[in-house]
């Protein structure tokens, strides 16, 4: 049963990943990427890594890809010019692809991740809590890498916000000023001397 589910998920994952790079419409590509994330979360669930699987859905599917889709949808993409440079960039693309493939073979090959080095995990009892295990590891053994990673992310957030604050003449509104406003600040009532009304007789004379 587990094998059937795994191969179903793997097939969907490979299909979605292929579609991400081959489909022409960028919005569809982003949607296929979401499908790929979601199915890989399913594969992780089969590994009893439910915390990582749910975090993948929460962070990547729930937040990152929404913003991705947000940006991609706003682009008005004319498809023809995108295909023009295909032959021109083909050698460079092939080179990068070959480089990545070699790197992945070197790192992810059987020497490092073979069954004799990383044996298949034995199934855990029902009361095993993956969340608790990750929490204990993260805050004891890996506490320094964890803290350093969070500091780097915070720096990135601050830097990104600083970039948006560069222009000083932005039309940002001060809510407290808007709330404090009184009628006298907005409306000026001018008292004017009204001219005496013309009577009917005067009008006829003119």
């Amino acid at each position, binding site marked *: 049963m587990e094998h059937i589910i795994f191969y179903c998920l793997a097939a969907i994952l490979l299909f979605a990943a292929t579609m991400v790079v081959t489909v022409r419409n960028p919005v569809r590509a982003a949607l296929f990427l979401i499908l790929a994330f979601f199915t890989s979360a399913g594969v992780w669930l089969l590994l009893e890594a439910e915390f990582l699987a749910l975090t993948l*859905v929460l962070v990547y599917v729930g937040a990152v890809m929404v913003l991705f889709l947000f940006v991609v949808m706003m682009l008005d993409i004319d498809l023809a010019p995108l295909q023009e440079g295909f032959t021109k960039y083909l050698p460079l693309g092939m080179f990068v692809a070959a480089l990545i493939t070699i790197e992945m073979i070197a790192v992810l090959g059987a020497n490092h991740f073979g069954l004799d080095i990383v044996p298949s995990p034995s199934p855990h009892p029902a009361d095993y809590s993956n969340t608790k295990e990750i929490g204990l590891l993260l805050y004891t053994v890996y506490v320094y890498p964890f803290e350093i990673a969070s500091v780097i992310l915070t720096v990135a957030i601050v830097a990104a916000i600083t970039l948006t604050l560069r222009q000083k003449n932005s039309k940002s509104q001060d809510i407290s000023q808007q709330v404090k406003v009184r009628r006298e600040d907005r409306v000026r009532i001018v008292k004017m001397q009204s001219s005496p009304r013309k009577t009917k007789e005067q009008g006829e004379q003119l």
Partner: protein
Amino acid sequence: MIDWIVSTPVVFTILKIVAIIVPLMLAVAYLTYAERKIIGYIQVRIGPNRVGPWGLLQPIADGLKLALKEVIFPAKSNLYLFLVAPVLAIGPALAAWAVMPFDATMTLANIDAGLLYILAITSMGVYGIVIAGWASNSRYAFLGALRSAAQVVSYEIAMGFALVGVLVAAGSLNLGQIVLGQQGGFWHWYWLPLLPLFVVYFISGVAETNRAPFDVSEGESEIVAGFHVEYSGMAFAVFFLAEYADMILISMLASVMFMGGWLSPFQGIPGLESLFSWVPGIVWLLLKTSFFLFLYLWFRATFPRYRYDQIMRLGWKVFIPVTLVWLIVVATAQVMDIGPWFSEPASHNSVALMEGTD
């Protein structure tokens, strides 16, 4: 027959799912009726009263009307995505109910990371709206989709932090454990020690479900009907179902996490506790949920729609700092064993942590 059903997990699970979905759909139908009646009375009107006694058959009539209407496909729309969008909206709205603890033993899937599952699944609901807006090939729909995407992502952070406070206080991600952590009557429920988080959670929940006063994604006065302006008939009805199912979900989650879930409010009060001990837990849960649903309707009848920049300001500059500060307060109280709420479970947790570090 019954033995066969119970012994076949697939059939039994499907029956349980039906036992959740069917009452949920009925609740959605009568929530629309309650909404029209309550807002009617708030505005000194009578509300629907023509179809059936007191208008009770009005939701059935509305559903029938929507089912019989033609589904119109806009020209040059992306037909496939146009049809997938309502499904993507209602799928997460129903899937999240899988981990809901209706009673001490009444849960479809009692998983360890239930809270995380709820957050992950509900965060996917926004795709239905975004894809609907884009696939409709309409400017109003697209504007609604963009507004909704930005708003939901912003409020999800505040909502997530509020839930982190709950899990710090309960020491568990399991929704049943969170309810059991609140045992001891009304004053022991998390709404009091986590009051700022409770308020932030519920208001973020209103924003997440795109309800008034945060309903800018379908603001009638600005963008006609927002993301579902091009939808008609059953396709529109599915969006409608998803929105109301989400409202019920948020209300029930608020009662599970801050109002003691299925626990009786009279726990610990000498005379009343035994007097009401025959009431099944699910009744308390449903009563608490109804209270939050009433708040939804009350909000809608009371507040004018927020301006878009005010929504963003409230989410990012008010709610997130408030939750961050209160998270520190809760964590400190938990570690220092500050009573009356955090004295007992905290000692339990620190023991567990000590064992882990050895």
